[in-house]
């Protein structure tokens, strides 16, 4: 046994014995000192440097704990096996001695620490006595070690008692350091946070007390009442401490407590002391406003004025999001999965939540069986949405079997008054939507039996506003939503829509007007006059247009304001010349398809950049036309664009020339009206009536306005003219 030889005790036992005796004497002296300190405790003032030693108590205490455990194990003989008895015992002596030394030192340190401020109360006392008893026992154990080794029974009872004392003392010490119930907190169940609703909360109990508990009570409790102040109960708070009562609303700083709280952290009297968790601004505000408002211990939060600072603080505090708590167990995952399909979705409220929500989709796929099938999870369902499903009164009987239902949406179902009685067992129901059903006040009356009901949606039902008033009167807890009542409000219809795609028509083209509002009547005129609801033509699907006309239409419906007017010009296809040409090419950027653009019966829109338009900048448009056979000419229509911002103005003058031979005469002319300053872009037509005459050759000359008018931003500049069609009638 090599290592045995290396041990000093084995080499020079004589010297070791002497040393052991010396150590034992020291232990004895230490224990005497300990008892002296204990007796003289109240008269001792610990100097600062010794405080440092005292504060090392939590560090050093681990040595005696481990050594004592080792000692107990060693003395039990479990390591002995074949070892030599003397050697084994002398190791045991060493262990015992070391245990006794370290436990004595630790106890002295602990005693010094306990003299610091803030270590009072039951726990500290128990720890102190345990801590003193341990080195004393160890000392005696060493002294009586030989007899203990001989009598196993004595040995066992001693070690068992020491072990119990050690665990007890250690636990008390840990409680001082970490706080009460630190050890068991993770496994203790009753600690579940009770969620208090704002409505139920008390000012002191739920707002002020939590602050005191978090930041003050650690030092000011009945165990450890620093400054003789106990802040655990209203009575203790009212009594105050050594330095007097805690608050005084007549003082400018509201008394002792708030004065201490508001002192700078460095100040010795600042509370909580430097180094301890400090009050947050919000917590200080809570204490301040509570004291200022008279420090009531019974008031409810809801009794406070809505503008009260304390109430506003409380609202902020109580708005911290909290997870809802459910008492039931989760449903079997497999069952939930098997009940899910494309038209019935059952899902947990959130990951890990036992609560289930049920949604139905697709009215065509709904059968009453779909409801009864989910009864296996009835405990867990808290919300069900049956919006627009063909649910009837009988199905509500099934719904009544879901005891934890909190939210139920029955909007646009087929239920009526008689069905609502079935809902009576739903004692947890908070929200109920009946919108779009046939229920009346008579049926809803029955819901008064539902204790938890808060929100009721009654829009678009048989319940009148007067009913709601009286229901509300009798059920103060309800919030009844009546929704938007369309009957009492008049709004304007939108203008009819012209569905004809083409503006250039043949005779007898159907006129296609449309309005999306059911039952809206369309009236229209063909002569450009404003339509009215009496004299104007009533639109039906047989309506036709047979000539060039401006169709104006409006929509009418009872209970609505008449629509704005829709205006659309239609042009009858004219005679197409056999040949035509432009005297000069249009502007290269807007050349369209040349002269053909004017005769393709395809009108452009406000976007003049398309090939449906031809444009001239400051120059005349002159188009010549020939007919193989003479035609009778009675009018010419030119359709054009006006866009002031883009310098496109109506022309200055339009002339129509014609004849049957080589010579043409002026048949008619037009000087178009000019628009006013703020007119936005529009399409227009210029009709030049002509005394009926036979022609074979024709010429139309369009002269632009010489310059932009005075009011124009670019006054004096050249103007543009744009045309898309010409109709020859």
């Amino acid at each position: 046994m090599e290592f045995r030889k290396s041990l000093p005790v084995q080499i020079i036992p004589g010297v070791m014995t002497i040393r052991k005796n010396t150590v034992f004497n020291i232990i004895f002296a230490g224990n005497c000192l300990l008892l002296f300190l204990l007796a003289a405790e109240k008269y001792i003032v610990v100097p600062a440097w010794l405080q440092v030693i005292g504060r090392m108590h939590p560090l050093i205490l681990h040595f005696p704990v481990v050594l004592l455990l080792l000692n107990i194990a060693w003395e039990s003989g479990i390591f002995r096996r074949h070892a030599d008895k003397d050697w084994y015992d002398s190791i045991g002596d060493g262990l015992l001695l070391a245990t006794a030394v370290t436990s004595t030192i630790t106890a002295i340190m602990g005693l010094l620490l306990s003299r610091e401020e803030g270590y009072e109360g039951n726990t500290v006392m128990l720890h102190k006595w345990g801590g003193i008893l341990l080195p004393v026992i160890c000392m005696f154990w060493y002294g009586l070690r030989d007899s203990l080794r001989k009598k196993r029974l004595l040995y066992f009872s001693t070690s068992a008692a020491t072990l119990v004392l050690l665990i007890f003392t250690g636990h008390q010490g840990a409680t001082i350091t970490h706080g009460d119930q630190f050890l068991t907190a993770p496994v203790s169940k009753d600690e579940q946070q009770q969620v208090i609703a704002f409505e139920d909360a008390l000012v002191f109990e739920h707002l002020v007390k939590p602050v005191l508990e978090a930041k003050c009570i650690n030092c000011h409790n009945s165990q450890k009442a620093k400054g003789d102040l106990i802040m655990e109960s209203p009575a203790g708070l009212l009594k105050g401490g050594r330095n007097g009562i805690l608050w005084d609303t007549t003082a400018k700083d509201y008394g002792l407590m708030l004065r201490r709280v508001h002192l700078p952290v460095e100040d010795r009297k600042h509370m909580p002391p430097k180094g301890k968790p400090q009050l947050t601004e919000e917590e200080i505000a809570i204490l301040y406003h509570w004291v200022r408002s008279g420090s009531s211990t019974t008031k409810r939060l809801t009794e406070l004025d809505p503008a009260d600072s304390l109430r506003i603080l409380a609202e902020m505090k109580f708005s911290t999001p909290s997870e809802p708590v459910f008492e039931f167990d989760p449903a079997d995952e497999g069952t939930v999965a098997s009940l899910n399909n494309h038209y019935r979705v059952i899902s947990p409220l959130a990951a890990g939540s036992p609560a289930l929500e049920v949604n139905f989709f697709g009215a065509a796929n709904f059968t009453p069986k779909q409801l009864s099938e989910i009864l296996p999870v009835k405990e867990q369902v808290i919300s069900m949405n049956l919006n627009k499903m063909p649910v009837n009164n009988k199905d509500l009987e099934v719904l009544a079997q879901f005891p934890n239902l909190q939210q139920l949406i029955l909007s646009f179902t087929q239920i009526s008054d008689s069905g609502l009685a079935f809902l009576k067992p739903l004692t947890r129901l908070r929200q109920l939507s009946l919108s779009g059903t046939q229920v009346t006040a008579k049926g809803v009356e029955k819901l008064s039996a539902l204790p938890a009901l808060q929100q009721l949606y009654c829009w678009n039902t048989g319940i009148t506003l007067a009913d709601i008033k009286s229901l509300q009167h009798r059920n103060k807890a309800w919030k009844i939503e009546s929704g938007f009542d369309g009957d009492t409000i008049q709004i304007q219809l939108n203008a009819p829509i012209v569905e004809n795609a083409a503006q250039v028509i043949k005779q007898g083209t159907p006129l296609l007007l449309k309005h999306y509002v059911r039952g809206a009547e369309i009236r229209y005129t063909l002569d450009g006059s404003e339509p009215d609801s009496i004299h104007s033509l009533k639109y039906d699907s047989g309506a036709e247009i047979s000539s060039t006309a401006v169709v104006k239409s409006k929509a009418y419906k009872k209970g609505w304001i008449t629509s704005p007017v829709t205006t659309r010009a239609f042009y009858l296809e004219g005679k197409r010349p056999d040949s035509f040409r432009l005297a000069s090419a249009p502007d290269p950027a807007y050349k369209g398809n040349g002269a053909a653009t004017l005769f393709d019966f395809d009108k452009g829109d406000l976007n003049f950049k398309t090939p449906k338009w031809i444009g001239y900048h400051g120059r005349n448009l002159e188009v010549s036309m020939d007919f193989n056979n003479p035609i009778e000419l009675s009018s010419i229509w030119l359709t054009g664009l006006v866009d002031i911002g883009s310098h496109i103005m109506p022309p200055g003058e339009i002339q129509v020339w014609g004849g049957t031979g080589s010579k043409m005469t002026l048949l008619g002319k037009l000087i178009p009206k000019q628009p006013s300053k703020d007119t936005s872009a529009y399409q227009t037509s210029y009709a030049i009536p002509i005394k009926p005459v036979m022609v074979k050759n024709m010429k139309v000359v369009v002269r632009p306005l010489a310059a932009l008018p005075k009011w124009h931003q670019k006054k004096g500049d050249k103007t543009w003219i744009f045309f898309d069609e010409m109709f020859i009638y």
Partner: protein
Amino acid sequence: MEKEVLQHHLNMNRRRFLSKLSLGVGSVALGSLLIPDLFGSKDHQEELLQRLPQFAPKAKRIIYLFQNGAPSQLELFDYKPLLREQFGKDLPASIRMGQRLTGMTAGQTKFPLAGSFYDFAQYGESRAWISDLLPHTAAIADELCIIKSMYTEAINHDPALTFFQTGAQVGNRPSMGAWLSYGLGSENANLPAFCVLLSKGKGNGQGVYSKLWTNGFLDSIHQGVQFSSSENPVLYLNNHESIDKADRRKMLDELAALNDENYKTFGDPEISAKVQQYEMAYRMQTAVPEVTDLSKEPESVIKLYGADCLVPGTYAANCLLARKLSENGVRFVQLYHQGWDSHGNLPGEMRGQCQDTDQASAALVTDLKQRGLLDETLVIWGGEFGRTNYCQGALTKENYGRDHHPRCFSIWMAGGGIKPGVYGETDEYGYNIINNPVHVHDFHATVLHLMGMDHEQLTFKHLGRRYRLTDVAGKVVNDIIKA
């Protein structure tokens, strides 16, 4: 055959190979039971496959009324009488603080302040200032949380829009709706989880592009489905007249059998994804007509949204359709309404834009409320940034324009766990935020929070790192969330 083998190798790409391998090793290793991260076997991504909120959600669905082009906050919600008093005076340098301008006004020598052409009044319990342009919105003031202190980093439309929709200015990230579809899945398996509706006002418009509703690196099933503005909102959904429902069913069954064969050979997950999409389209053939049918809407609803709600492609029609999609379990309905980019002729353009949108926006909130759905549906109204307090171009009492302003703008939210009120504050010039700023990332974090998702947990691993909608920033604005 050689070609097929090659195909198989291509399908079996490196990442899939490695992930399969690690799964095999991981499931054997007992060590991973004690050290869960050892083999990375339990990933966020796998947890997310549950498609459940991480905590109890306040909102189940979102309708986002995006006002594309950036409506001017100074004419709608951010009442600044000082700008009228100082009409035409130059914006003080102490307020501008040399902050960046767009190229459109950076060259201006003067920045003349322009007060709102329209008057304001106070409404609701919060006494919120709302413009005369928005009478219907003002009437629902008690439902709204008006955030006056939104700000963004982008100063031009495309990056700002992309930032708002995807959390990044560059256009390769998944859109908000795609993230939600990824995190929460579809509520109604017969409709897409993410739908997009477009409309256009008469004002100066800015484009919308499909990259705004992209799935980015997420699976393609999370992409937004754009509904058409025509009377047939989903194109090519109806059977050809020569095919009836039974034929279609038979055809899909045969096709699925063929695809299944193919899947057994190649094992490419895209094949089964495709089969699922066909099946969904089949179910949509009955679900979509049911959802889009307006004939059963009571007349009071038509009056509520305005008669335009029956005209396909209008903003009002899209608001009504949004409600119908949402009540049928579509998680995220994204509307875009173009025409708010009022660089010039602002008073006229704003009037037109508000006439098109005010009634229907407010109607949507009222309509959800009267059905009992507002509590679980979050409605968001807002643009991509704000507009400057100074005039762009010529300034007259009746006419002016405003340039882009990312440093403060107003949006509103309603329902879905939002606490009504007014949040945030700008200085008296309406140029900088002085209280409770809300960054776009904060907005995203808050929206995800309302939907029961922690924005830091909703991640997807791509190109070697985990991505979030909020990237590496974002704080939940708890002050605007109901208890």
